[in-house]
């Protein structure tokens, strides 16, 4: 293999800086999970449809399974674990998901939390988040009813003032 088949990148994940050399074909999802041990990043369909792999890249919700690690050079990544601080209380959306039984197996949950928080913070309306944002995630367990209840319950606390 020659050098051009590898990439050297620097990225920040949940505030921690990493410098990595990996094969160019490495997907961001696999880099995060397998090389950097961020096991909270899920891998589902590996072609961008199911949403389980969704993380924040520079604050935007992105499918990590269809982003090459090489494209994340210089990026600030936030995974679902990065949305909570060790030892602190669960933030409003995560708390609402536990209170309203918004997950069963939990496999899709990480991606949904990241998407909803990123889009809410970006000023999207609740209607758009409940339809378009959530529409980008496949949940086989819940039928979405309690997911929607949880998002509704937490909405005022996760959306910026102006977008309520």
């Amino acid at each position: 293999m020659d050098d051009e088949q590898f990439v050297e990148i620097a990225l920040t994940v949940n505030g921690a800086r990493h410098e990595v050399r990996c094969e160019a074909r490495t997907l961001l999802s696999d880099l995060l999970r397998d090389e950097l041990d961020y096991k909270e990043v899920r891998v589902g369909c590996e072609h961008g449809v199911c949403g389980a792999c969704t993380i924040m890249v520079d604050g935007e919700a992105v499918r990590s399974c269809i982003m090459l690690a090489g494209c994340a050079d210089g990026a600030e990544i936030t995974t679902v674990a990065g949305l909570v601080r060790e030892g602190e209380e669960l933030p409003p959306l995560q708390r609402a998901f536990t209170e309203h039984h918004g997950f069963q197996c939990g496999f899709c949950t990480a991606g949904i939390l990241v998407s909803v928080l990123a889009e809410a913070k970006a000023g999207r309306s609740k209607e758009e988040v409940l339809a378009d944002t959530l529409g980008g995630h496949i949940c086989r367990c819940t039928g979405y009813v309690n997911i929607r209840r949880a998002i509704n319950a937490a909405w005022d606390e996760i959306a910026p003032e102006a977008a309520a």
Partner: protein
Amino acid sequence: MSAYPRNDAIAASVDVKPASFRFSRPTDLDEALALLAEHGDEAVVMAGGQSLTPLLNLRMARPEMVVDVSRVSGLDALAVDRDAVTIGATCRARRVELDAEVRAVLPVLPEALGYVGHPQIRNRSTVGGMVAFADPAAEIPAVLRACDGTVELRSANGSRQVAATDFFVGVYQTARADDELVTSVRLAAPPRHRFVVTEHARRHGDFAITGGIFGLALEQRIIRGLRLCFFGVGHGPVRLEALEQRFIGEEFDDRLIVEIAGGVGHLLTPPSDVHASAAYRQHTAAVITKRSLRALAHEGATHG
């Protein structure tokens, strides 16, 4: 350092991770064009990667080289003038979709973008990439065609503009040569036309089974302009220009809408595939034509 096993037996059987490729990430247009001049026939260009990476993951594409142009400076400009929008090739779809000026001048474009996957996809995908990839089920090539847009192509030897009508030549095939890069697309709102985008898919965000871009310009009740451009019905966007011309000057009433829809059903020759038969697509195209033109008629009545 590798996320993937080096065991050859495993590597040989794995077909859900990309095969190896060389990767370049130019930051400068001349650098990108030099790469394409030298490696164009064995390289694929990546902008948002939302169509390409799934193909790499499933090993449906096994290029020697991937050239990521998303960091090439100056390629992501978005310019709106009085009635036209010029979109740099690496401008993210989500940015175009949410831009207030684009919405004011060319509302059909954000409406069509709303059908492209989901917001999470659109955060990365690019309008230039959608045009260059030329998926026959894609919305944006159809918008470009409906609005008589143009595509700017550059190579190390110069640049050229290609009209949408000449750009989409087949399934995933365009007029772009191997050493060329799509650098921008430009489209203008046809004067006095109002547009509706209608897409039929199994779920919102799925690939279209059949869809259409419908434009109408009315003076009193007389048709002064009509745009009928379909996607998911053939080798690329299909614009029924002869049918459009046939109805200019006619009074726009429901009888005419039914006639137009009938014409659409007759003229389209969509493919059959695992998702739908040709007959289903023809029927669907006629139905969405009726629904869309009726929606435009209703809008016209309330807006005067």
